């Protein structure tokens, strides 16, 4: 599905990511763990085609999008990727339906198909009956369900989730992770950033980041200390 080789990124003299090599096959559920400031978010921004300012090579579905135009990148994000953010990043003045509809606005989906697809994902994440509710009227767990529904409404092949349970309690985190597990079982590739080991256990594989370097085994992380 995706492969990155020797990827690095710096802000001036400060190296945020160094020599990152990672391959994620289609259908995998990968967790990326690491402390704050380790470069996790920077890495998933690159993986999610949100940040093109890096060195090295990144292939998504065997294609290198490094020099692709901004407009085409937007279309690829809209068609192939889905994002779930830590603080949900919902539009507060829009209701549940309108929030979930956002990706469909830019994928030129017909109006009647939009309705069907939004209703489908609302059902899938267990928010039936909440279509007209505003985010402020929902619990944290419900808001994250809306965010997941928005991420999957375009049927992406890859979901990138940045700390999807970061703002949730244990019980709600479990419910959200169950949704991710189901999506993965249905064939969606998931890359999830988390600092919570319990949450990471839902993934098939976990990699670790520390000081901008990627480790494939937890034992290697502190080896150089």
């Amino acid at each position, binding site marked *: 599905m995706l492969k990155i080789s020797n990827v690095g990124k710096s802000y001036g003299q400060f190296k945020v990511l160094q020599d990152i090599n990672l391959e994620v096959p289609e259908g995998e559920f990968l967790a990326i763990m690491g402390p704050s400031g380790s470069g996790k978010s920077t890495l998933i921004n690159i993986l999610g085609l*949100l*940040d093109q300012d890096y060195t090295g090579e990144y292939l998504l579905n065997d294609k290198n999008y490094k020099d692709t135009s*901004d*407009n085409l990148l937007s279309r690829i*994000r809209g068609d192939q990727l889905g994002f779930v953010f830590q603080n949900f990043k919902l539009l507060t*003045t829009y209701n549940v339906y309108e929030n979930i509809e956002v*990706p469909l*606005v830019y994928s030129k989906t017909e109006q009647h198909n939009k309705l069907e697809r939004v209703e489908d994902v609302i059902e899938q994440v267990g928010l039936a009956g909440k279509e007209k509710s505003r985010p402020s009227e929902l619990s944290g767990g419900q808001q994250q369900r809306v965010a997941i529904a928005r991420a999957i409404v375009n049927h992406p092949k890859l979901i990138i989730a940045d700390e999807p349970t970061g703002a949730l309690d244990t019980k709600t985190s479990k419910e959200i992770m169950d949704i991710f597990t189901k999506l993965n079982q249905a064939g969606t590739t998931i890359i999830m950033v988390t600092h919570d080991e319990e949450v990471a256990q839902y993934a098939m594989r976990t990699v670790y980041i520390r000081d901008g370097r990627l480790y494939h085994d937890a034992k290697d992380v502190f080896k150089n200390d």
Partner: protein
Amino acid sequence: MIDKIMIAFKSIGKNKNRNFLTMLGIIIGIACVIAILAVGDGFTKTMTKGMGTHNDKGRVTISFQSSSYDDVTSGLTQNDVSTLERVSGVDHVKLDSSNTAATAKIQYKTKRESTDLNKAPKHLKLYKGVGTTIDKSDMSNIFISHGLATRIFKGESALNKPLIIEGNVFIIRGIYKVSDFNYRPDIYVSKDVFKQLFANQITQNIARIYVQPDANKKTVGKQAVQQMKKFGEDKQMGSYSVSNPDQISKTFTKMLNYITYFVALVAGISLLIAGIGVMNVMYITVSERRKEIGIRRAFGATSNDIRSQFLIESVVLCVIGGLIGIICGYALVAVINAFLPFKAIVTGYSLAISLSVSTAVGLIFGFIPSNKAAQSPLVGLLKEE
């Protein structure tokens, strides 16, 4: 596109007060444009109506001026028409009259004067009296002007009083007012009475010469005057000359141009200020919605989508302002009409201009903020909370 328009309405509705205040500039600007254009159009229509038609393309006009003020019989004849039609380059000739009314001597008790008189128009708005037209069944019915009523009857009610015109007794059935911009005679009689008693006063003193397409108007006019000086039937009674409505048109056009420049200046200043207000509010909107821009970009919106989204919002804001401005403009025109001696008219083209200007203000002043929104780096936008 529809999605973006809906998003624009939602965004505008979210900050009603702020956006209304922004629109206020557009509303005032457009209302002024509508009102001033209406006054200009009304003025043009009134002047054009007063001056008659000025479509003198392919036509030259010869007029006869009697040398005696009292002479009401001399003018142009059918023989003169034949003479004129023999002039090289003339296609055909029509006679007309510059006199819009007859003159009559009137008397009420011992008070006498000489005044203008004509047949009544089909509809006349009366200041006093009933109806809008003279009752044909009674030939003695007449309408008189408010000015004449004041002069002759001196505070007495003139309605249903007798008035002697050229020795015949008539009864005043209505009184009308005359505005400064529209000429009206002091007395209106019925069509039949006018035909019987006064029509012979209206002499034909204008010849409209229609020239052939390849002929020179000026040369034809010159030759026509020379011919009339030699062969005109009433050449001893007065003089012939080419009247030049082009000159009148030019002066009139010049005056209208000044009005147009004034309109453009007033509208330009108010809309420039309004546009700066729109630009300011769009900058604020873009700053407030950085998170939303980031989310939309992450979920497939291109830079162009974001640019067009904010441009549409700016245009929708201005067009709503423009529409409210048009309604206010209508109200303003109604108020102005209560004070003007002529009627200001809102025309279709002034509505089209107003809407086009509103759209243009939205596009011009919304472009830079929209461009800023489109070019913001995506990673930075997604860090916004």
